[in-house]
């Protein structure tokens, strides 16, 4: 039971990191990213491959995971950021599918659908599995704390204020002399880097990654977390991640309690409930639990 709780809190931390990353892209800069799981996967694969095949030390692998995701984010943002948000939605969604396809098919590199196993973890093997879980819990939540403090500062810095201005009205920001495209690209890059870092941590915690771990449903979890917590507020991202975890695990117990349904039906029920919650939340409480505090209340 304790191991289960610790594992769940590790996942909550990973979700919180991703939600923080998304909050920079969506919450501050107002750009949609429906391909979060692609950046997460990219970070995970980059770090896993570098540490298992080239035997890079883990911290370097994690940094590389973040850097690769940031680079991919930059390329995408440069191509799409000058267009309307619809295109960004399509491109990011497509990007995540492409990452999954490449991971499934480049067997020489990624081992295909069999996945990569034996990814090292910090002190794994040297300590008991319980201790390893606790160590990793500390690492993940330390990363969350660092990201939270740093991004909250970014959010209140001149950079963050420009991003909010871009979100509210690009033309006004451009008239005020701000290079809108450059700000958008940097915001996308920063957010993607945080998500990629979360992916790298996931790979080393799980010791095993495979393409099916990077399904679009994960993107929905994170969008749900951020919406539940409150888009724009960094605290909201963390609260939201914990809420999503509660919902995920709650539905697990709920589904287990329903008699007479097959495991496939249980999985379908859970995924359906998650998707439905996002739709209901967007409708009935779009500002989330912790609405963003701005001096002038922004109209959507």
């Amino acid at each position: 039971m304790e191991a289960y709780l610790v594992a769940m809190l590790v996942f909550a931390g990973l979700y919180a990191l991703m939600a923080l990353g998304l909050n920079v892209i969506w919450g501050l800069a107002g750009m949609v990213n429906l391909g979060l799981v692609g950046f997460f996967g990219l970070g995970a694969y980059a770090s896993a491959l570098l540490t298992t095949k080239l035997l890079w030390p883990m911290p370097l692998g994690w940094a590389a995971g973040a850097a690769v995701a940031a680079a991919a984010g930059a390329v995408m943002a440069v191509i799409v950021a000058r267009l309307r948000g619809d295109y960004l939605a399509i491109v990011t969604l497509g990007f995540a599918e492409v990452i999954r396809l490449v991971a499934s098919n480049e067997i020489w590199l990624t081992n295909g659908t069999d996945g990569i196993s034996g990814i090292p973890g910090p002190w794994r093997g040297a300590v008991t599995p319980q201790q390893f879980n606790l160590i990793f819990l500390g690492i993940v939540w330390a990363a969350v704390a660092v990201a939270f403090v740093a991004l909250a500062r970014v959010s209140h810095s001149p950079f963050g204020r420009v991003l909010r201005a871009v979100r509210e009205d690009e033309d006004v920001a451009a008239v005020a002399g701000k290079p809108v495209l450059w700000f958008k690209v940097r915001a996308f890059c920063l957010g993607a880097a945080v998500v990629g870092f979360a992916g790298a941590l996931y790979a080393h915690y799980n010791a095993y990654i495979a393409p099916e771990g990077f399904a679009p449903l994960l993107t929905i979890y994170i969008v749900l977390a951020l919406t539940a917590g409150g888009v724009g507020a960094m605290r909201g991202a963390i609260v939201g991640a914990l809420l999503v975890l509660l919902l995920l695990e709650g539905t697990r117990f709920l589904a287990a309690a329903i008699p007479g349904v097959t495991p496939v039906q249980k999985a379908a029920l859970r995924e359906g409930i998650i998707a439905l919650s996002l739709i209901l939340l967007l409708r009935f409480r779009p500002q989330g639990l912790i609405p963003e505090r701005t001096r002038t209340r922004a109209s959507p």
Partner: protein
Amino acid sequence: MIQDWRDLVQVLVNGVMAGSVLMLPAIGFNCIFAVLRYPNFAVAGYATVGAFAGWIANVQWGLPAGLALVAAFLVAGAAGLLAEEAALKPLRPSGALTVAIASVALTILLENVVRFFFGNSLRGYDLPVLRDWRFDGIRVNPQQLSNTAYALAAAAALFALLAFTRLGRAMRAVADNPQLADIKGVDPDRIARVAVFIGAGLAGFGGMLIGLDTSIDPLTGFRVVLSVFAAAVVGGLGSIPGAALGAMVVGIGEEMASVVLEPAYRTVTAFLAILLVLTIRPEGLLGRRG
């Protein structure tokens, strides 16, 4: 690899047949975009719903494929209309991106409703097994050819509706300029409902065509969604003739790419097509700027 002109013709034939299957969901996507101005990712879910509705009509009720396609159209259209009114319409005031995000959730919801009732196993339609026809070394699968015919017939029906009926004119008017159409007494809500019904219905029709070609499972729609978006973007978001043309371009492009790349990379080709078009001509082949 391509060695003589026959191989090239074969690739083109396969490309047109692949493109015609993508055409209807792409037209559906652009039809909804033209009137409501948001990318409705739920077309993937509607395609799956249509494929399963057609499967029930064809396999369980024993209807021929042509009639089952009508069932696929009607059920997917009704599902689309219901989902739009219940889930997406109330979100429209929050902006196009909120609706787009909700439509991704909607696709996952629909997929899981299908999964709950039908499970994950692959299902095939009740079809006669036909051998390929050969014309001077070029192979044509009769089933794929009839799918192409069905797709062209459905697209032709839509074009006739848009070109020759009052309703079609009203739809084009709303797509062109919603305010002006409103002033002229066109009820935008009604047109939106019609556009969603037709768009989702065509996605369902296309979903069943995909299934007639191979087999169906709850991910049938999602698997082709990238090719469908590529067709819509290449043709021009919101342009219905564009979607038809874009589908052909993407279909042929994917076939050509699969000569050199692995077949699994078809959708990667589609993604690259999206990036290419957005880089050099964001409004697409037949779209308008703006």
